[in-house]
């Protein structure tokens, strides 16, 4: 059971998800591609994998310029989202719609944390902007999430993950 290809594939997916928003047209809030990678891994492998992939994703978001402060906050919030999505694994097979719904809840949670923190007076967040990010993420998820889940499924089938 060789896990290296699975780890490499996830790392590659995460790095591209973090770097791709640079190619996004300015003026449009970028979709949260990183969460979709976390969601695919968590929905197939459960909370522990969800937390680990979420931590890696958050550290990347925190460190790749312009990054976020304080270091590690995004990692914890994505780890929580990963754990949440991992708990939904049990029901994920019930309907093809469920992974999407679970991802929508997790994305809302991640953005909600930002909203609440801003409401508490640390940092700024415009509710309209958060809503637009969420809607855009969920639109992108319609296409990207099934592809990512299929990738995870193939990795698992080959006993790579």
């Amino acid at each position, binding site marked *: 059971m060789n896990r290296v290809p699975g780890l490499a594939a996830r790392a590659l997916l995460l790095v591209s998800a973090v770097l791709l928003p*640079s190619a996004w047209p300015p003026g449009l809030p970028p979709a949260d591609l990183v969460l979709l990678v976390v969601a695919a891994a968590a929905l197939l492998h459960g909370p522990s994998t969800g*937390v680990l992939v979420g931590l890696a994703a958050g550290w990347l978001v925190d460190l790749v310029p312009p990054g976020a402060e304080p*270091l590690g906050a995004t990692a*914890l919030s994505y780890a929580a989202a990963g754990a949440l999505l991992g708990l939904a694994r049990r029901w994920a097979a019930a309907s093809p719609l469920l992974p999407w719904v679970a991802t929508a809840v997790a994305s809302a949670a991640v953005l909600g944390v930002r909203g609440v923190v801003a409401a508490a007076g640390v*940092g*700024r967040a415009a509710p309209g*902007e958060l809503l637009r990010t969420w809607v855009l993420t969920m639109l992108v998820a319609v296409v990207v999430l099934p592809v990512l889940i299929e990738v995870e499924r193939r990795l698992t089938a080959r006993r790579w993950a």
Partner: protein
Amino acid sequence: MPRRRRALPVTAAVLTALTAAALVVDLARPGLVEPLRGSVARVAAPVQSVLAGWDDARLTELTRERNALAAEVTRLEEQLRRQGQLAALDRATTWGDHRLLPARVVAVAPGTSPVGGRTVTLDVGASEGVTQDQTVVSVDGLVGRVVRVGGASSDVLLLGDAEAVVGVRFGAEGGLGSVAAVPPPGLPPRGAGDLTLTAVGDTTIRVGDDVTTLGSPDDRPYVARVPLGTVTSVDPDRGQLGATAVVRPHVDPDTLDLVAVVFVEGEGG
């Protein structure tokens, strides 16, 4: 494999605890992780600037021999536009002898991190002579200041960030005040992107007053007399110490593309 099955949750718990520890360390000693951020920036900068400029690269790639002339015209027009912007920027800088280093925004702060900061990354860095706390302007006015410098990229704290507070002059009389994104308590909520001007003295604020930067010692972090915004409404007097007003900044941070880093004459770079 029960051992492996148990190992995964333990690893997850340990790494989460380490992340929480890193968070506490970063809050306690903010400068400690700068080398880490710097090395990531060095690796990511080339990829980001390629990704941010992919449309230009594709344009030249797709225009083969047949439409090479059309591409040339597009390129020249773009150059002319950029030249025009830079010339206008140069004219707008009536604030002394400054050299402007053109730069392009290659990445924006993620919208999902818990603390909503407003920062962008530029494609110029230490190799071009950029240092911390330099002013960044665009053709419209003040953009922000450099907070972090990497090898080939630098991060800019935008005007709308909660931590950005700028000393300003406003109106024809040149009253003193400060502009910040977060209004003092007790004021009505502001629209998205609007800033709050708090007057220091008893100069009357009027709607339509121009707001320009006051300047800092050695022109760091803000050089003087850069246009910042216009007063759009004045808050009713509630007996507070300084009068307050809503300022609409000239620069829209959401559509930033070409900006310039200000070098004060006599500085390196």
